[in-house]
């Protein structure tokens, strides 16, 4: 339905020629902007509602209680997937988990997945790559957090967490549980926050879509195959390293990546790149530096980086 509306708008109303490169590019831009705009509004609202009702305190107690019998890492990782986009929320949670007596490995499971699987990335993935790739992305993100947190938990890394984190663990009163409000009373503030996220990232997404549209219209199909396909074994690690400084533009990069995939860049390389953009962010590292000693921070980011590269190779083989 959206597609035919975009057809009508671009080729009918504006009268652009559908066979010209630029007509094609404009059509791509208009259609994708509408589709992704809708998805972003929808997914941010959905995640906002989930978060409004998520009893953080109880989740923490549940994980700390030891009743999960080995599935703690998976639960913590899944919890990371539903918590919001911004690292200003995931780092207090990370510290709060440790203070609540949750083991470091389990807490790291949460910390790895939290930025990796977020509402903005999911909305963009659905819009640009479809449900299947989105599911693969989300599932592998959750799996990565689960396995890596478990593996890192095997080493005695707790001594590299700053002392103040452990010090305030005791003697604090329970935090005020959020007040009981009905869905209708909550909706305005949830909606306001969701729209805040969408407007914050809108310029990046639009810029990314514009560049993506240009690539779609002008770069010949299969153009990148000669440079970036299986013939170049360094493509995956290179794209992961390139991704690290791009955090601020995460939401603008995905549309460009999608255009590159359409022109022959392997999907696994693209997924690894995207995971590295959101999962290995410098601002997050700066904030974590307050709570972690450099050795732990380096181990953590190193392990996540290497795993993402591994996943990239795996996807290129399998997909």
């Amino acid at each position, binding site marked *: 339905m959206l597609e035919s509306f975009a057809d009508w708008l671009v080729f009918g109303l504006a009268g652009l020629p559908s066979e010209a490169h630029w007509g094609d590019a404009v059509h791509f831009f208009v259609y994708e902007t509408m589709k992704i705009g809708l998805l972003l509004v929808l997914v941010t609202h959905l995640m906002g509602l989930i*978060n*409004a009702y998520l009893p*953080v*305190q109880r989740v*923490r107690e549940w994980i700390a209680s030891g009743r999960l019998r080995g599935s703690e890492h998976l639960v913590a990782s899944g919890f990371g997937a539903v918590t919001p986009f*911004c690292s*200003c*929320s995931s*780092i*207090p*949670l990370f*510290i*709060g988990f440790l*203070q609540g007596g949750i083991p470091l490995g389990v807490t790291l499971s949460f910390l790895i997945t939290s930025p990796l699987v977020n509402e903005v990335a999911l909305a963009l993935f659905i819009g640009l790559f479809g449900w299947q790739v989105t599911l693969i992305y989300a599932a592998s993100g959750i799996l990565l957090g689960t396995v890596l947190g478990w593996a890192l938990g095997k080493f005695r890394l707790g001594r590299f967490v700053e002392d*103040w*984190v452990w010090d*305030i663990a005791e003697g*604090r*009163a329970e*935090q*005020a549980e*959020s007040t009981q409000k009905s869905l209708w009373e909550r909706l*305005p*503030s949830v909606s*306001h*926050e969701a729209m*805040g*996220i969408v407007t*914050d990232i809108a310029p990046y997404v639009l810029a990314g879509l514009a560049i993506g549209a240009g690539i779609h219209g002008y770069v010949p199909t299969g153009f990148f195959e000669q440079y970036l396909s299986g013939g170049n074994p360094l493509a995956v690690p290179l794209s992961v390293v390139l991704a690290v400084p791009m955090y601020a533009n995460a939401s603008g990069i995905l549309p460009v990546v999608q255009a590159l995939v359409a022109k022959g860049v392997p999907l696994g390389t693209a997924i690894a790149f995207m995971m590295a953009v959101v999962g290995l962010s410098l601002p997050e590292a700066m*904030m974590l530096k*307050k*709570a972690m000693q450099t050795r732990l921070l380096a181990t953590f980011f190193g392990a996540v980086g290497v795993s993402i590269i591994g996943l990239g190779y795996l996807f290129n083989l399998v997909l």
Partner: protein
Amino acid sequence: MDIKVLGTGCSSCQTLERRVREAVEQTGSDASVEKIEDMQQIMQYNVMSMPALVVNDEVQVVGQTPSVNELADLLGA
């Protein structure tokens, strides 16, 4: 009254600070409003989601951004 807004740079943290200042102006109280961005200080209050509002060292709001009117009610009490 001593009001602290806990939060880092994210947009809802900034929204809460702006609304708190508006609410204080509306109620005409002489409360002091302070924004705390240092993670170590924030964690002293045992809050796990941002932004948070602390009034006279008591945590009142966690992980939400109430409207100016709601905040005025809260602060006026």
